[in-house]
């Protein structure tokens, strides 16, 4: 048995070595692709297309530096980031207990299911005007937008995860007269971790969508607001600067989730 495991590890070691070589090449080629795209864009804006329409990478870089210097970059980025993170956190805090309740109270869930699915299918973007009436044009309405887009992801994933839980394992703990809190702590919560990570993966992007849509409809700060304001003045450089920053937030969010996933991915339900 131990021999099998050791040879298995050796196999992984070899794969890791080859992997490193492949990874270095991959990074080089990605930088190359980025340079070609951005360079092509730059050339295009100098030759064929008026930069009024597509701006120009060098102009966007200049704008980002200017925004950073004036403090506006951080003010707007931080605002959008805060809205998305608060919305995501709130969706987690509300969605996970609701998902657990859906699994525990089967009849209640059966009663509520069509309504949950109706709300889930509603394009949440259309709620933005209502949320601005209800929660004002400041931070809170955007947090609620992000919250409402992500909530169902957590609810439905946690519910799905709990439905697949190993019944024999629960029965065994019942025969050992394990108290409910023990079962929750030792089995239920660890069991849904992979589903929580899957929810987070989708949720990061969705929370950002919710926040930005809210900002586009009505706000006084944030990257969505900056993009909307720039577009109103035909300032495509401003629009692209905002898009670059949004992309940076999304990439950073995905990296954080990937880290969390690596930390917990040693176990997965089959």
């Amino acid at each position: 048995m131990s021999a099998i495991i050791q040879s298995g590890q050796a196999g992984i070691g070899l794969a890791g070595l080859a992997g490193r070589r492949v990874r270095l090449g991959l990074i080089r080629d990605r930088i190359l692709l980025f340079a070609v795209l951005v360079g092509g864009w730059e050339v295009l804006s100098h030759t064929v297309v008026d930069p009024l329409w597509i701006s120009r990478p060098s102009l966007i870089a200049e704008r980002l530096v200017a925004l950073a210097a004036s403090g506006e970059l951080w003010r707007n980025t931080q605002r959008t980031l805060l809205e998305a993170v608060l919305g995501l956190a709130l969706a987690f805090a509300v969605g996970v207990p609701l998902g657990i309740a859906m699994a525990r109270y089967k009849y209640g869930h059966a009663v509520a299911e069509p309504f949950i699915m109706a709300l889930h299918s509603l394009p949440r973007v259309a709620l933005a005007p209502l949320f601005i009436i209800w929660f004002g044009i400041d931070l809170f309405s955007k947090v609620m937008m992000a919250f409402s887009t992500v909530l169902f992801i957590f609810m439905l994933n946690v519910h799905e995860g709990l439905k697949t839980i190993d019944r024999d394992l629960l029965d065994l703990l019942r025969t050992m007269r394990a108290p409910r809190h023990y079962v929750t702590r030792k089995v239920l919560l660890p069991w849904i971790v992979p589903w929580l990570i899957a929810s987070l993966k989708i949720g990061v992007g969705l929370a950002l969508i919710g926040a930005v849509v809210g900002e586009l409809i009505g706000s006084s700060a944030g990257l969505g607001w900056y993009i909307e304001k720039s577009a109103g003045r035909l300032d495509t450089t401003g629009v692209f600067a905002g898009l670059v920053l949004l992309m940076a937030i999304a990439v950073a969010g995905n990296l954080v989730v990937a880290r969390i996933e690596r930390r917990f991915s040693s176990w997965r339900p089959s």
Partner: protein
Amino acid sequence: MSAVVALRQERSDSPSALPAKIAIRHLSVDYPSPDGRPVRVLQDVSLDVAPGEFVAVVGPSGCGKSTLLRVLSGLLQPASGTAAIDGRGVAEASDRIGFMFQRDTLLPWASVEDNILIGAELGPKRVDRARLGELIAFLKLKGFEKHRPHELSGGMRQRVSLGRLLAYEPEIFLMDEPFGALDSQTKAAMGRELLRIWSAHQRAVLFVTHDIEEAVTLADRVIVLSARPGRIRLDVQVDLERPRDPKLLRRDPRFLSLVERVWGALDVQPDL
């Protein structure tokens, strides 16, 4: 209360001299079927298990062997009849019941050590490092303390399940084909380990299996259930001295005639 009194009276005129540890009286169990009508899986089963007695239950698949254990562990309610442990209903019984499934029901994210510690945390006393080490050595799991279930073989996983069971220090063992998924050598080795544990602690064991030779090798008594709905067709004492050597038993005429009798009582019919 009156049920308890009734049980005591019945017990006094049962043939066994010892008071029963487990007393099952006229037990019938129904399962809901897909079309909504209940299907009877056990029919009027009465059975006593004495303290320290090792009883094996065999029968065709679907005859309600596992159902019997599920009723005794309180996971399932009978349609009629009673199941009692030390004269008390299974829900009120204070005895710790050690249940073991055919599948190892380990926490997939937890190490061997942590899985075994589950038994200790729910059991009567704390298990310290030294005792845990002893248990791991006894189960031949040394060096694998930090491994997770998916890194172990089937036999090792089942030994971890057994370790969790032992750390719980059960007063009754209910085993539902615990070695059924293992290859025959591993199965024989696990059987020997189980007998070693059993002879050291002398707990009542109800051991469900479909392997007749395993049943006769391990048990003091073999119960044969009929096809569904399960009724007791044979209840036979295994008068073979212990310790038993499986290799020698295979040539012992008494062993062979017992296996023959159990085979005869099993009406094995192909499922239609």
